[in-house]
C-alpha cells in the first residue's frame, strides 16, 4: 500500500459471491416454483423453463468472473478512475470534488467476511451519478474515503478501530472507553429504552401483516393454500377460546417482530462527527452508513407527526445532494424518535453554522384572512361528488353533513396551519415552519440556496402579503415555499438573498 495512489486495483473477489447471493435471492420464488413445487413434474413447459433458468443462471454466474477481472479502479490524487466492461470497455473518471457524500452498505454476506461496500454519490443526474465499490476491505474503504477528503497522511488501521464496536457492549452507557481517534465525537447512540420506544412509535409491528400477506400470496401462486387455510379458519371459528388464543399469539408475534425489526435497524445506531464530516451508521445484521461533509449539507429539516408532537418528539433530517438507493432511504435522518430539544441540540453539535431558533416571527392576521378566502377546492369537489353520489348506508350521515364536515375540516386545518406557520431570517440562515397537523421546520443557509423567488397573487395583493420560495440542491431538487408573509418580510428576504456576500462569490459551481 506504500505507493498506493495510482495503483490499479480490483474489487474484493467476494463481491462475486455477493452478486451470486443477490441473484439467487432475486430469483428465489422462481427456484421455489420450479425446483420445489414442480420438482417431480414431467410437463414439457416446466422442463423448458427449468433448462432456461439453469442456462441463464449459468451464464450470469460465469460472467461474474470476467466482469470482476475486467473491472479495475485507480485512486488518484484528486479523482477516481474506473475501467470496466467485458467486451465494451468503459472508462470513467470522477473528480473527488464532485463527490457529495459517501454511503456504505454492508449486507450480511459481506459483514461475515469483514468487507464493506462503498458508494460515492455525486450530484449528477442519471445512472452515472454514483461510483459503487461493490466489495472492498474495510481498510480499502477507509483509504478511499481518506483520499477523498485529502486526509492522505493517516494510517488506515487507525480508522479501522472506529468501525469495530465490541460485541455485547451496552449501547446505553456513554462510549467513553472507546473514544474514537482523530477528534471524532459520538453524538448519539440509542439506549435500550429508546429502541423499545422506537419499536412502538414506528408501528413496525404492523409490518408483520404485509409480510405474512406477501409470503402467503407468493406461496399461494404455486400451491392452493386458500383451500387449506379455509379449513383452518373454519376449525378456529368453532371455538372462541381457540380463536382468542390465536389472536393473542399473533399480537405477541407482531410485537416481538416489531421489536426485533427495530433493533435490527437501530440496534447499533450511531451519529458521530469530526471537524470535516458527519457519520451516521445503523444496522445489526446488515449495516448502512452515511458520511457526508458538513460543507455539503444543503439544509436541515425537522418533521413532527401528530403522534410525535403529542410526545414532544421530532425527527431531524439532513438534506444532501446525492440520492440514496435501496435500503438507504432514510439514512439521512438523525434518529427519528428523539425528544425535540435533543434533536435540535444534535443539529447544533453536528453543524455549528446552523442554529435552529425557537423564536420565530408569526404571520400577520391578514394572512389568516387570505388563507380562509382561498377556494377550498377539495371540499368543493368532495361535496359535489357526495351530492351526486348521495351515499346511503346505515350509520353514515346525510351527504350535506359529510360535506359540512369536509369544509369545517379544511378551514380548521388552515387555522392550525396559520397558527403553526413561522419564519425567521437570521444572519446567513433562513428558517420556515409550517403545517397543520404534521409540522415541518426547514433551515438553510443563503449560500446553499440556488434560486429564490418572491411572488404575489391578486388575492394576496390587497392584504399586503406575499409568498417566498427557496430552491436547494438535492435529488430531486428541493423546493421550499412559505405563503402569506408580510410584504416587508419579503423585502428583507430579497435583501438577505441578494445582499453582497463573500460566501456567495466563493461558492463553487458544483456547490
Amino acid at each position, binding site marked *: 500500500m506504500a505507493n498506493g495512489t495510482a495503483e490499479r486495483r480490483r474489487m474484493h473477489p467476494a463481491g462475486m459471491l455477493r452478486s451470486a447471493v443477490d441473484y439467487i435471492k432475486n430469483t428465489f420464488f422462481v427456484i421455489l416454483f420450479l425446483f420445489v413445487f414442480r420438482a417431480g413434474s414431467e410437463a414439457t413447459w416446466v422442463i423448458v423453463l427449468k433448462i432456461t433458468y439453469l442456462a441463464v443462471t449459468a451464464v450470469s454466474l460465469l460472467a461474474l468472473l470476467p466482469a470482476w477481472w475486467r473491472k479495475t479502479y485507480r485512486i488518484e490524487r484528486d479523482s477516481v478512475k474506473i475501467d470496466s466492461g467485458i467486451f465494451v470497455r468503459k472508462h470513467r473518471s470522477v473528480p473527488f470534488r464532485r463527490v457529495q457524500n459517501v454511503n456504505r452498505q454492508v449486507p450480511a454476506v459481506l459483514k461475515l467476511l469483514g468487507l464493506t461496500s462503498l458508494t460515492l454519490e455525486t*450530484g449528477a443526474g442519471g445512472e452515472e451519478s454514483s461510483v459503487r465499490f461493490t466489495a472492498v476491505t474495510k481498510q480499502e474503504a477507509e483509504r478511499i474515503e481518506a483520499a477523498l477528503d485529502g486526509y492522505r497522511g493517516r494510517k488506515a488501521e487507525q480508522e479501522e478501530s472506529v468501525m469495530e464496536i465490541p460485541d455485547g457492549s451496552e449501547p446505553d452507557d456513554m462510549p467513553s472507553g472507546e473514544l474514537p481517534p482523530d477528534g471524532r465525537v459520538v453524538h448519539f447512540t440509542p439506549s435500550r429504552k429508546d429502541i423499545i420506544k422506537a419499536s412502538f412509535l414506528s408501528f413496525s409491528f404492523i409490518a408483520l401483516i404485509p409480510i405474512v400477506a406477501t409470503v402467503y400470496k407468493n406461496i399461494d401462486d404455486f400451491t392452493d393454500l386458500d383451500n387449506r387455510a379455509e379449513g383452518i379458519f373454519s376449525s378456529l371459528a368453532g371455538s372462541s377460546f381457540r380463536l382468542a388464543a390465536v389472536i393473542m399469539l399473533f399480537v405477541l408475534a407482531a410485537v416481538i417482530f416489531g421489536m426485533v425489526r427495530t433493533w435490527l435497524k437501530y440496534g447499533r445506531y450511531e451519529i458521530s462527527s469530526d471537524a470535516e464530516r458527519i457519520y451516521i451508521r445503523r444496522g445489526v445484521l446488515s449495516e448502512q452508513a452515511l458520511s457526508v461533509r458538513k460543507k455539503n449539507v444543503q439544509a436541515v429539516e425537522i418533521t413532527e407527526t401528530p403522534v410525535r408532537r403529542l410526545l414532544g418528539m421530532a425527527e431531524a433530517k439532513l438534506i444532501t445532494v446525492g440520492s440514496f438507493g435501496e435500503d438507504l432511504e432514510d439514512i439521512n435522518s438523525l434518529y427519528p424518535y428523539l425528544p425535540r430539544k435533543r434533536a435540535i441540540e444534535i443539529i447544533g453539535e453536528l453543524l455549528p453554522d446552523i442554529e435552529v431558533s425557537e423564536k420565530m416571527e408569526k404571520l400577520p392576521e391578514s394572512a389568516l384572512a387570505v388563507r380562509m378566502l382561498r377556494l377550498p377546492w377539495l371540499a368543493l369537489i368532495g361535496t359535489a361528488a357526495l351530492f351526486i353520489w348521495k351515499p346511503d348506508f346505515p350509520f353514515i350521515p346525510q351527504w350535506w353533513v359529510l360535506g359540512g364536515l369536509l369544509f369545517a375540516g379544511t378551514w380548521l386545518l388552515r387555522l392550525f396551519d396559520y397558527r403553526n406557520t413561522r419564519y425567521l431570517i437570521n444572519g446567513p440562515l433562513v428558517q420556515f415552519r409550517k403545517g397543520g397537523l404534521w409540522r415541518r421546520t426547514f433551515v438553510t443557509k443563503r449560500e446553499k440556496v*440556488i*434560486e*429564490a*423567488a*418572491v*411572488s*404575489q*397573487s*391578486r388575492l394576496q*395583493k390587497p392584504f399586503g402579503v*406575499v409568498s417566498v420560495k427557496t*430552491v*436547494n*440542491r438535492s435529488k430531486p*431538487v428541493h423546493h421550499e415555499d412559505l405563503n402569506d408573509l408580510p*410584504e*416587508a418580510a*419579503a*423585502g428583507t428576504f*430579497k435583501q438577505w*438573498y*441578494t445582499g*453582497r456576500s463573500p460566501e*456567495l*462569490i*466563493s*461558492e*463553487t*459551481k458544483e*456547490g
Partner: protein
Amino acid sequence: MLDTISPPEGRISKKAVKVWRLANLIGEAAILLVIAALLAAGIHFGWWRWLIITLWVVGGASVLSAIYSIFIEPVLTQRYWRYGADDEFIKLRSGIWNVSEQTIPMTKVQVVNLKQGPLLRRYGLYSLEIETMGSSHSVPALPEEEARTFRDRIAHLAKIREEED
C-alpha cells in the same frame, strides 16, 4: 405588485404579442376543431346524451379560453414581463394574476441557450433559456441583438465565477 421591491428594467419585445397571438390561435383552433369533430360525430351517430352535453360544455369553455388567450393574455403577459441582471444575479419577473420574481445567482447558471422556432423567426426574435442545477427558466421573446448581448453577458459572468474558484 410587490411594491416594496423595485422591478428589473428590461422588457421583452412588443412583437411577442403577435407571436403569442399566432401561436395561441393555432393551438386553440386545433382544440376547437377536435371538439367540433367529436360533436359532429356524436350527433351523427347518436352517442349518449351526457357525452354530447359534456362536449358542448367543454366546447363553450374552450371558446372563452380561446378569446382570453388570443386577445387578452398576450398583451398582459408582455406588459408585465421584466428581466434584468447585475453582476451577481439574474432577475426575472412575470405573471398576470400571480406575479412572481425569480432571483438566480450567476454562480449557479449552468447553461444559457438561445432558441428560435418558426414563429419567433418570422419576427426576428429569440427566446433565452437559463438552466441552473435546479431548474430552467426562459425569457420568452427578445430581439436578436438584445438576446445575444444578454446571453454573452450571462455566459461571461457565470464563467468568471468559475475561474475565480
